[in-house]
């Protein structure tokens, strides 16, 4: 790929936006927040961010907000991420790797089902396993 100019990037965006409008509103108002503190980075939060972006691109979902925060206080199960999908409980997933990220996109964002074996915080305490099922 040749080095892109800002003008070419602008054209690519316009072209993508046209495609996006035709598509379903699958990820609308959904948010993925990745814990990117020292603990998260050390445990591999960056490859997880990559995996989320790749999985969302593969499923042609362009409208999920992907953002970062610092440590969420669960350093022992990093990388941790929070997923907020309208109509579903907010969930903090822990011990997330690239494969889990893919699973969260397919099962939680698209399928609207919780990925129970990586849940560490939020819904009723009886659903959450102390070690996230690991």
């Amino acid at each position, binding site marked *: 790929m040749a080095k892109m100019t800002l003008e070419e990037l602008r054209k690519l965006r316009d072209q993508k936006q046209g495609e996006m409008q035709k598509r379903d509103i699958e990820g609308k108002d959904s948010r993925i927040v990745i814990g*990117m503190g020292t603990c998260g980075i050390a445990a591999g939060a*960056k490859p997880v961010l*990559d995996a989320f972006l790749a999985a969302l691109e593969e499923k042609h979902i362009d409208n999920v907000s992907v953002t970062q925060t610092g440590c969420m206080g669960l350093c022992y199960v990093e990388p941790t991420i929070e997923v907020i999908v309208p109509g579903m409980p907010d969930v903090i997933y822990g011990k997330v790797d690239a494969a889990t990220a893919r699973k969260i996109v397919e099962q939680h964002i698209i399928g609207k089902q919780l990925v129970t074996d990586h849940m560490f915080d939020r819904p009723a305490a009886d659903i959450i396993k102390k070690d996230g099922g690991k």
Partner: protein
Amino acid sequence: MHICIDDYLLDIVQNSFEAASTRVELVLDETESKLKCLIRDNGKGMDAGVQKRVLDPFYSDGVKHTKRKVGLGLPFLSQACEACQGTFALHSEVGVGTTVEFSFNLGHLDAPPMGNLVSTFVALLSHPLAKELVIRRTVSTRKGTSTYTLSKEELEEVLGSLSTSGVLNLLREYIHSQEEEVMTYHVEPKMQSETRRTQQEM
């Protein structure tokens, strides 16, 4: 503990964002043997007392996490630079900002691998606390010199807010094309023999 150089960069640039900076610069100058890095912000800065203590892993200002007694970002970085006989320097002034300047001796046995700069730049540019971030990356070797510059304000002017998956994937593609170009000038560092420190030196 971080594995790659890009992990340290991601960690330390975030400090600048959290120090209420409106403009942060990350400058990376790579040669065949060295990677020189500079992170400069116009954030709140640190007084002399704090500057003395930030390299102590058991020091934290206790503001972000009130009960925490460790702060590992800068201690990890200075240790990694020292391990490969690189350099580390911190300059800061309250109300003016902070500059962290450091280098890695890439041919040293204990130099960390570079990691994935494209991902790191995507993460930094899309950080919610980043107002203006300017990244300048230069590779300069016997093959020639090449530079690219990324500015958050400029990229947002083209792409809109750097926050949704579609935009971030476009951003990644753009940065990847810049990185690919400078990497044509990259030369693998020649491993220095006998660079591992002897027991006495340590």
